[in-house]
């Protein structure tokens, strides 16, 4: 068989974890090969080995049949391997063109030959239908275009093997479709693609073959055309996965959160990003704020949790007006918050897991006395949560948060926020970037909280999640709530129309 890349019997061990255990991955020329696995299954490690960021403990890498050593990313680049990272590696205040050139500048005399580069980029962008504006600044273009810039960067370096690391996590549904098209075009022109993801429908849609990893071990490689979503998920998780969320009808009781005529002004544009919004969340129900990113949902949440100031209006939690209370007060009086950006807000990555699990409660008598931290209590609490919420961390509570996988970081945040025992759980994009196993788990936890009589306010950009998880949907468009929908009586199409402003609804709080 004509393999362009073979990674044979790769093993790599980190302190406490076997990240890769005798894993083999063979990539054919011109195919899209999906690499599937839960968070922490070893996908990133395997790709980092291929990219020269880590050295394998054992095993070998062959490129076009030749055994090679990839010592660093430069070696990988020389071998024609390029990677589009999940978090783009672009310089914000450089132009698109300069970002593509960076590190590979064509030189004429003492100067960079931008015109020659521009020509090459233009040819590439027409061949592969990658539309970009080469003179725009990265900071000013959409996420989708930033990704196209990343792809062009690889093509500009004449890479033959392209690794896409969870490329769809940051994209809108339209952009995802577009990306799938681009990937197909690339393989048509002879490029080979490794596609790392845990979204099963994308694998079915675009890939030729799929290799599945679980807990560092190779489970198998299958032809996509001969498999199905349930089979793939069984391979990935090791058991049958529940795709339908099982929940009883909600029995809402009294209101926990009341938002009245809330207006939030953006500190940058001075516009009303949230414009006169009123709603309630009651005990025993899950209310979802649906909408396309940037329509004011995040700001509503920031105002409720205290991260942003309300310009006008009232926020009431359990009969208490907290509009002018600080964040600590709200945290201590019934608000739990799973934030949108777990690295920026959710965790202090340089603190260990135990400290992060105590982050919202370290100041309470439970964990401190006369200003001194009770480290034993903190560690014991961490062990309890790790056990109870199945957080996987190599060195238990002493594990540095930074070294944990994304799914386990999210689990840690959820554990912390749920275990706090607040009456209101505010959760934003809780399943972003997570695999089906983790998603199933987190959805289950949220429903459980609802059934315990907690009020849950959810923000999600995933229409599937909105429809399956919530008991009530509030659609936000341009800072206003434009519709209240019953998930049982609406569908993707109607929801989509409201979200894009294509249909105007009536909403009265």
């Amino acid at each position, binding site marked *: 068989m004509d393999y362009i890349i073979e990674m044979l019997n790769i093993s790599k061990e980190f*302190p406490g974890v076997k990240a890769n255990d005798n894993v083999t991955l063979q990539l054919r020329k011109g195919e899209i090969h999906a690499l599937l696995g839960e968070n922490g299954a070893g996908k990133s490690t395997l790709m980092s080995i291929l990219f020269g960021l880590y*050295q394998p*403990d*054992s095993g*070998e890498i062959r490129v076009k049949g030749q*055994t090679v*050593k990839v010592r660093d990313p430069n070696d990988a680049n020389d071998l024609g391997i390029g990677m589009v990272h999940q978090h783009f590696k672009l310089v914000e205040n450089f132009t698109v063109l300069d970002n593509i050139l960076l590190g590979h500048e064509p030189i004429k005399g003492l100067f960079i030959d931008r015109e020659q580069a521009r020509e090459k980029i233009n040819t590439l962008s027409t061949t592969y239908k990658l539309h970009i504006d080469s003179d725009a600044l990265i900071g000013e273009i959409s996420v989708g275009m930033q990704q196209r810039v990343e792809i062009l960067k690889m093509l500009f370096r004449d890479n033959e093997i392209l690794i896409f690391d969870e490329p769809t996590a940051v994209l809108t549904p339209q952009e995802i479709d577009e990306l799938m098209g681009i990937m197909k075009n690339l393989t048509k022109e002879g490029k080979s693609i490794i596609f790392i993801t845990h979204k099963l429908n994308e694998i079915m849609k675009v890939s030729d073959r799929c290799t599945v990893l679980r807990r560092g071990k190779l489970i198998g490689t299958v032809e996509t055309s001969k498999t199905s979503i349930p089979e793939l998920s069984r391979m990935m998780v090791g058991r049958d996965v529940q795709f339908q969320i099982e929940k009883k009808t909600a029995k809402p009781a009294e209101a926990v959160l009341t938002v009245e005529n809330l207006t939030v002004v953006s500190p940058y544009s001075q516009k009303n990003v949230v414009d006169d919004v009123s709603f309630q969340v009651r005990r025993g129900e899950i209310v979802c704020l649906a909408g396309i990113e940037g329509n004011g949902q995040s700001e509503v949440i920031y105002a409720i*949790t205290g*991260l942003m100031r309300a310009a006008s209006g009232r926020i009431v939690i359990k009969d208490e007006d907290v509009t002018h209370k*600080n*964040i*600590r*007060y*709200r*945290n*201590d009086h019934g608000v739990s*918050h799973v*934030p949108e950006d777990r690295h*920026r*807000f*959710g*965790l*202090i*990555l*340089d*603190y260990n897991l135990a*400290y992060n699990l105590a*982050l*919202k409660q*370290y*100041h309470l008598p439970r964990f*401190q006395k006369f*200003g*001194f*931290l009770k*480290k034993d209590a903190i560690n014991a609490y961490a062990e309890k949560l790790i056990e109870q919420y199945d957080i996987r961390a190599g060195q238990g509570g002493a594990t540095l948060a930074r070294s944990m996988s994304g799914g386990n970081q999210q689990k840690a945040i959820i554990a912390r926020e749920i275990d706090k025992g607040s009456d209101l759980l505010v959760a934003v994009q809780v399943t972003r970037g997570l695999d089906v196993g983790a998603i199933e788990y987190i959805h289950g936890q949220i429903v459980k909280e609802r059934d315990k009589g907690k009020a849950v306010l959810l923000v999600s950009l995933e229409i599937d999640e909105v429809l399956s998880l919530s008991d009530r949907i509030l659609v936000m468009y341009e800072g206003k709530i434009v519709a209240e929908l019953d998930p049982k009586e609406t569908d993707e199409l109607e929801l989509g129309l409201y979200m894009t402003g294509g249909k105007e609804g009536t909403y009265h709080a």
Partner: protein
Amino acid sequence: MPDRGFVKNALSKTETFFKELPQKNSFKIFVSVLVSVLIGLFAGLLILLIFNPRNSFRAFGGILAGAFGDPTSVLIGIGDWFYYATPILLTGLSVGFAFKTGLFNIGAAGQFMVGQYAALMVAFYGGGLGSFQWVAALAAGILAGALWGFIPGFFKAIFNVNEVITSIMFNYIGMYLTNLLIKSNLTVYNQARTETHKINTEAFLPKFGMDKILPGSRADIGFLIAILVAISMFIILNKTKFGFELKGVGYNRHASRYAGINEKKAIILSMAIAGALAALGGALKMIAPGAHNVGNTLTVEEMLAPEGFNGIPVALLGLSNPVGIIFSALFITYIQRGGFFVQSLVMIEIIDIIIGVIIYFSAFSLVIRLFFERRAQRKRTEAELEADELKPEGGEA
């Protein structure tokens, strides 16, 4: 036999401690600091060989002998070592403490100077305080320094003005302001000598028995105070809620705010404490009895206190860890004292260059750590390659 069990337990504990030691992060850091110091010393020797080949080895020996090379007596050497280490230990703590909160306190010089000034004023006007005068002088210094740190901290927290810029400005404001205040006060200022009059010996720091242990030296209670402060800093940073908050803000300001920490307060307090630490160094230097023969005076000149800037390398070499800073302050002073004693062999400027080089290399400790880790990795992969080649079916020749 509970005793035997205890001993056994202790033995096995020490055994695991030493077994795990090479894996421990703190051990790796310690080794890399040590290696970088050795490289620095070697580079220093090279410089000596270039500039002064004839005396280089003798001079280098003198530098290595450090504080112990005191020609009068070893005990005096040790006492003076402590005396000279005290100010930079405190400015080092000042810079290191701010580092922990993610702030760069480059204003230690200004804080040091206002601390000196405040202590001087109490020394002049606090005669009625009796044996508490020195305590009052230190307290005044601490307050003045806290104010000098508070202002940049306040601007950083409330208006997001970079603390580096404000604290540099406050270095100069502190220097010119104290000069101005001294010059306009003729009870304090000695116009003929462009410096302050000598302060009363009653205002001096107590020796606290240091003159008994280390007779004839300049040592006083100051060094002990500095050590005590360093240990308190260590406890605050590692054991308390307050330290948890400060470090949290240093690591991730946003997440700290989200957790309910008042990050503005943390920034302001951290800078104020950093200022107080540097100023305490200034105050201790001002009223140290060891400075008696040079008059315990402040010279009115347009120069920032060098102790302030020396705090930066002290903090870097000590990796901002208060206990590490004790050792780095002692190490740097040790080398400086050694250099001082071999002045007859090499020019003092060369000694300063050598010290600079040593500190410079010391700051490379992180790079050196990476280098060792890389090499270990490479060795492993090379061993594998060789093993592959030895396999009979491996080669095609």
